[in-house]
């Protein structure tokens, strides 16, 4: 029986789609059978991030409206034998799908796949409700900014209210130089405020922009973000992986800076 994971954030632009693409690809690299579902109806973008935009025939709305079978709508990623994408519809609107339909779809896919990853739209309306309806667990993505953290707190509350028991935090786009200067919250600061368990810290890395341009997730590469995402995947599988030392000199500078703080 597969596990259904929703990737959500509340605020837009913090890296939900990038995280879905990288965690999904990473899990496939680790030998799991994975399907990624873009639940942002009307604004599809997981397909371009994955580099699969030219192969779409059917979409999520076609599946729930029974215009096609699930298998017909799944795009197989030729780079990895176990990875599939169910793209969103571009021309329909959010009300085309109901939470009940999403639940049913997730349960059908559970039979076939180890992991079903749902890329959730921004906001807390219909699209969010659809995405979380069938989920067993959630990955909440945030950046170390006040707006993103506040929205993440709201989302965590809503996930709790909807009885999603397992919720983990990914702090994305961390800039260690700014953390060192005391001008950006660290992952510890964000965890302290949100009070949920951390599952990943992804540094701000220009390689992400390049990989998105190319339509090739960078998980598993030697870049810092690539390694950080692979560690997230291993932690999703239950492995206890130590956090990367994103800034080797941090210890010294932290001490140095703390002298001037008071």
């Amino acid at each position, binding site marked *: 029986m597969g596990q259904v994971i929703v990737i959500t954030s509340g605020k837009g632009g913090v890296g939900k789609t990038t995280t879905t693409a990288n965690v999904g690809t990473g899990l496939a690299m680790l030998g799991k059978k994975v399907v990624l579902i873009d639940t942002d109806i009307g604004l599809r973008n997981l397909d371009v991030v994955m580099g699969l935009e030219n192969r779409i025939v059917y979409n999520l709305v076609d599946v729930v409206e029974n215009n096609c079978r699930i298998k017909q709508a799944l795009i197989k990623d030729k780079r990895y034998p176990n990875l599939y994408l169910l793209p969103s519809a571009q021309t329909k609107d959010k009300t085309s799908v109901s939470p009940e339909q999403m639940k049913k779809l997730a349960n059908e896919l559970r039979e076939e796949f180890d992991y079903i990853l749902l890329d959730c739209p921004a906001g807390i309306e219909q699209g969010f409700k659809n995405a979380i309806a069938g989920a067993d667990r959630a990955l909440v993505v945030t950046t170390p*900014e*006040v707006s993103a*953290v*506040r929205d993440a*707190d*709201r989302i965590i*509350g809503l996930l709790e209210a909807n009885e999603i028991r397992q919720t983990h935090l990914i702090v994305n786009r961390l800039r260690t130089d700014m*953390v060192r*200067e*005391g*001008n*950006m*919250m*660290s992952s510890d*600061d964000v965890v*302290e*405020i949100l009070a949920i368990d951390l599952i990943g810290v992804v540094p701000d890395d220009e390689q992400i922009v390049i990989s998105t341009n190319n339509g090739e997730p960078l998980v598993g590469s030697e870049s810092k973000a690539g390694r950080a995402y692979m560690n997230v995947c291993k932690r999703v599988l239950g492995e206890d992986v130590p956090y990367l030392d994103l800034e080797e000199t941090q210890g010294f500078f932290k001490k140095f*800076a703390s002298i*001037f*703080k008071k």
Partner: protein
Amino acid sequence: MSFITNFFRSSENSKEIAKNRLKVAITSDRAVCSPEVMEQMKNDIIRVISNYVDIDTDGLDIKVTKTELDDSSGVVNALLANIPIKEGSRNFRK
């Protein structure tokens, strides 16, 4: 001179400013009631308790907070009321 210290203070501590602002914003986000409902509830509580004891309405403080359960099995929202009794009042009038 003060502009120099201000400059350093703000650049050193913008993360602390962010944290403190977030804590305040999130606490009120998490509260189960709107300020209007809180005010209404506060007035009702004052009215009921005043039937029994003289209370110091200025010192009254009511808020919704998260608190850990006694058996530390989880955290729940709790209504925390701090209601000072006026000095020299005869308690339990009725």
